[in-house]
């Protein structure tokens, strides 16, 4: 059992992080904490992608081997796969923009209600909002 966990520790770490983020998104009422949870959730997936690209022991970089007219193509088994890293560059950009939009929304909410606690906001809404 221990070996099973240790052998695939990167998956366990990402699932643990993801669940922490998930809990914060679902369980917390503070909007900033929800946002932090969302970040942990996204970053867990990024760690997962980067970890699946890694290889242990003597892995090289994906360049064409040999020189001076003596080329041989690099074997896929020998190099670290760079594609997940590239994909995650895009995912990081997406994550940053999502965080930016969410922070802007929190600022708008704070200006309107003077609080970032969701239950307090809902109370204010109940007393103030009627059907338009």
């Amino acid at each position, binding site marked *: 059992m221990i070996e099973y966990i240790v052998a695939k520790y990167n998956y366990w770490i990402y699932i643990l992080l993801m669940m922490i983020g*998930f809990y914060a*998104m679902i369980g917390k009422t503070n*909007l900033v904490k*929800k946002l932090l949870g*969302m970040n942990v*959730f*996204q970053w867990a*997936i990024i760690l*997962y*992608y980067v970890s*699946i690209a890694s290889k242990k022991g003597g892995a090289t970089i994906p360049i064409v081997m040999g020189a001076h007219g003596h080329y041989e193509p690099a074997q896929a088994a020998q190099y670290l796969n760079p594609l*997940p890293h590239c*994909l995650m560059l*895009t*995912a990081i950009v*997406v994550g940053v*923009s*999502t965080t930016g*939009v*969410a922070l*802007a*929304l*929190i600022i*708008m*909410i704070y200006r*309107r209600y003077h609080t970032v606690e*969701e239950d307090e*906001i809902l109370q204010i*809404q109940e007393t*103030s*909002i009627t*059907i*338009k």
Partner: protein
Amino acid sequence: MIAEQFPALIIVFPLIIAFWINIVGWRWTRPCFYMSMLALSVSFISALGILNTVITTGTIHYRLGGWEPPWGIEYVVDHLNALILVIVSFVGLVVGVYSKRSIQKEISEAKIPQFYAIYTLLVMALLGMTVTGDAFNLYVLLEIASLAAYALIALGEDGAPLASFNYVIMGTIGACFYLLGVGYLYIATGSLNMADLSQLLPNLYHSKAVLAAYAFLMIGIAIKMAFFPLHVWLPDAYTHAPSAVSAFVAGTMTKVGAYVLIRVMFTIFRPYFSIELVPVTTVLGWTAIAAMIYGCVLAIAQRDLKRMLCYILIAEVGYIVLGISVANRMGFTGAILHILNDAFMMACLFLVTGAIMYKIGTRDITNFRHLHKKMPFTMAAFTITALSVVGIPPTCGFFSKWYLILGAIDAKQWAFAVALVISSLLSAIVFFKVIEKAYFKPTASAQAHNGGTHEEVAMDEVPMSMLIPIYIMVAGILTLGLFSGKIISTVIQFAVPASF
């Protein structure tokens, strides 16, 4: 030839224009609207060109930068997504024209350039999701669409920022699940190209990683398309958004979600995987029934017209998924036809709601007395569209429901057929409640003071630039109804997976 470049042009042109709208918007507000409409017109013309090419010559494969498919990103357009491209770009253009006056009233002058930049970006991203043949590219465009939608929804009335924030949280969970699903597929196959995946996956169908990937993909897409019980973000977000935004997102975003669902179930995975190896169609079918009944029942309970329509939308998503889940030729035809029809119907209903808001400043249906005298054309459009949603013959809603019921009967799923009929009757109650309030309710004051004589209500319609888009949609609803046989025989029958 420019026609060969249409699959790229449909994305690239609005993308560049969206950027320039932002720049021009620093100084001038007026040209932003026209720039946005120019971009969307080019997209619409390209979409028509693509549809024409697909009908005459078959599936288009467009390689970006000339890279071969498993390595480079490939755009693939077959009959299914050519149709969705035309729908999305058309609804985007029509709602864009409508938005000119409605947005002036609903958001501050200073934000108008940004509104058009983001709106163009949203249409572009939905078109991109439809046109792409690469699973990761789809994720990126899905997030662009979602980010644009978050921003546009937050521009709405009081309460919109919180609704939008909840949408951010739910939407991110959905997108991350999709990304995880793609990750598991990548571990198993080493490929991201949809066609390549569908070649590589059949040998791995019993692998646990592939099953996990399938589950993650389905849940992620279900959140994005607001499929019951993962719809909780939708009513708040779409109710508080500006009316033009609600009309566009209600019309197209859930439909593009349904399209992605079809792609995952029947293109990335082979139909026999989704139907036989895992019992996903059964689960989807029964959940779709719950969505249909739940959506309509909650719609009856609403007083706010826009929120009522949001629940109807949840029921409509249920119809589409039901058609997909019966998994035979009739049901699938019904589902695709319903994607097409529902985009028009929902956009039209939300446009009408926006027009009512524009004139009388309220959406509470108890205040709709004498609305048929004040706004006869708008209410006529509402009535025709409502009849279409209920499914009365000359309108398009009837035909898609007809195929859905035929599909359910073909599959011997009697419960599905019964649920479809019940849900239609419930939606009839919903709409007749509104129509009764608007057409038949005598004013309380008139009865009290004048002993029942009618008070005069002057006609006061919305401006032409809002009325014409509404009537284009109504014309669309009637035309789609009349020509549904033609649409099925030229486009939809080729979009149904061959094994059905």
